[in-house]
């Protein structure tokens, strides 16, 4: 199988007023193409920091992170921006849409930075909005639609540049149970039908259950790594 993420002996320290804080202490993990990984763990266990590093938004203190075979330590800030643009789609807890722009423009934004022409961007953005069921809302502003719809727009934005990897940081944290399930179903479809690798952070076991693989962080280390309960059952 093709390795999307390969992490070797990863450590991350933060400088604070209280001194050096060791947030990640030697993490090793490999995630292959088509996997659906849920990351869980108590607050302060380092799972958010781990996600930031996966998203190339933060630098490692020591160790190596290979994304799609590339050593991220060797890349410049702008190289990383380009890598994020092409490889990764982000879905955040707070949706993080740009409030002044309509849905089409929001979805098309990564394509702007990819250098795509305006009319091509628009066609592609409409196409992807349709795939998340929001083609009728293209010219709406983010505050004119519901939270669940906003998260769908955010997913559409994450998908628009055809990434290999989707990183979702508590994507259902601000949504009710029913909407959460719909969003998770969307992720499952993407994973199964499109073969997109998904890594998602959550602290709700119900949400984690949608994934195939569960990684548990405790105190900056991976404490457990294996198939989710559902898949254990299925495999049995």
């Amino acid at each position, binding site marked *: 199988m093709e390795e999307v993420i390969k992490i070797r002996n990863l450590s991350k320290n933060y400088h604070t007023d209280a001194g050096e804080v060791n947030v990640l202490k030697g993490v090793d993990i490999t995630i292959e193409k088509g996997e659906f990984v849920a990351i869980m763990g108590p607050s302060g266990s380092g799972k958010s920091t781990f996600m930031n590093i996966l998203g190339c938004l933060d630098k490692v203190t020591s160790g190596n992170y290979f994304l799609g075979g590339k050593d991220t330590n060797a890349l410049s800030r702008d190289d990383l*921006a380009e890598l994020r*643009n092409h490889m990764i789609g982000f879905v955040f807890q707070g949706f*993080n849409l740009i409030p002044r722009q309509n849905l089409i423009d929001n979805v098309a934004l990564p394509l702007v930075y990819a250098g795509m022409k305006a009319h091509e961007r628009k066609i592609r953005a409409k196409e992807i909005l349709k795939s998340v069921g929001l083609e009728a809302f293209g010219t709406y502003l983010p505050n004119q639609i519901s939270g669940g719809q906003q998260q769908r727009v955010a997913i559409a*934005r994450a998908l628009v540049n055809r990434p290999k990897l989707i990183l979702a940081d508590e994507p259902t944290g601000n949504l009710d149970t029913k909407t959460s399930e719909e969003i998770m179903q969307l992720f499952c479809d993407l994973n199964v039908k499109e073969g997109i690798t998904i890594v998602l952070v959550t602290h709700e076991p119900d949400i984690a259950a949608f994934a195939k693989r569960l990684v548990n962080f405790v105190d900056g280390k991976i404490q457990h790594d294996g198939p989710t309960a559902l898949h254990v059952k299925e495999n049995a």
Partner: protein
Amino acid sequence: MSLAMLFEAWRAMGANRLRTFLTMLGMVIGVGAVIVMSAVGAGTQAKVKDSIASMGSNLLIVLAGSMTSGGVRLGSGGVQTLTVSDATAIEELDTISAAAPTTSGSAQLIYQSSNWYTQVTGTTSSYFEVRDWELESGYPFMDSDVRGATRVVVLGKTIAQNLFGDEDPVGKTIRIKNSPYLVVGVLAKKGQSLDGRDQDDTAIVPITTAQTKLFGTQFKGVVRFIMVEALSDSVMDKAEKEMGELLRQRHKLRESAEDDFTIRNLTALANTAEETTKAMSLMLAAIASISLLVGGIGIMNIMLVSVTERTREIGIRIAIGAKQRHILVQFLLEALMISIIGCLIGVCVGVGGAFLIQKFFAISIAVTQSSILISFAVATGVGVFFGFYPARKAANLEPIDALRYQ
């Protein structure tokens, strides 16, 4: 840079209209001030230039007597004066194109039931050349009129209007001091002189006529001053020097004696006047630029606020693939747009204001193309200069800090 980025900057500006407008106001006032100030400056300058040019170009005036000190320094041997033959000798110099000896007095001019009190100048036909004074109708008097001391007169526009109204004065006869004079020509309008005197309120007669028939004089052939036109601007200094030497020689002045005449260089006077108005418009421009500077600081201030407010948005943009230059250009464009639109409004306000000033304060103005172009250049400069720091601050934000910003 693409249309989408321009549109995005426009949208960001529109997101907080009042704030954007207030920020622009600094630029509007600054540019408006620059336009108005330079229009007033250029207007004054043009007016001064006009009135200097109306005196005649490359003009030198030789005055009788030692008048530089302003005191009673008439020199030994009584009143040393200039003569008509001095003027003739000056005209012979290589550097001089014409010299007109001039004397003057005041008299009442009468035509039928109208009369007018004015200054009558006695001079030679060279006078019209020296003063670059065209005739509106008729002809100037000739050298033969000067030789024969004939009773002919050339009228200034003001007198022609006051004595004749709509009638054509040429060929008519007027009375000056109870003697008949034939009007041979009417001078074209010249307007006010530098000191505000009406230059058209004058009548010109042959110098011989003035001296023998009109005013009479103890010393025939003696004149108050000689107006001299140099060949060109470049020989003015040389002409002045040669003329001085010639006159000292003709007046038989000893080495140690002071000049018994004074030469005034009107071009030098003109240059001084021009420099004064230039200095004035420069000062006005400097004051106006300070308001532009203040406007620029306003833009920087609001851009810093905007960057802070939109930290999270910047974080999102970086996360989904914006490179540093994308962010830099985005904020730079916003600052530029504020300053350039402010400048546009400022130009309109400035031009409008300048015309209002012209209308209500009767000050001559000249809105110059260069002041508008300079305003745009400065506005662009201000936008880039004061927009750069906030834009760089935005571009240098750490992705993770920006994304986490609440």
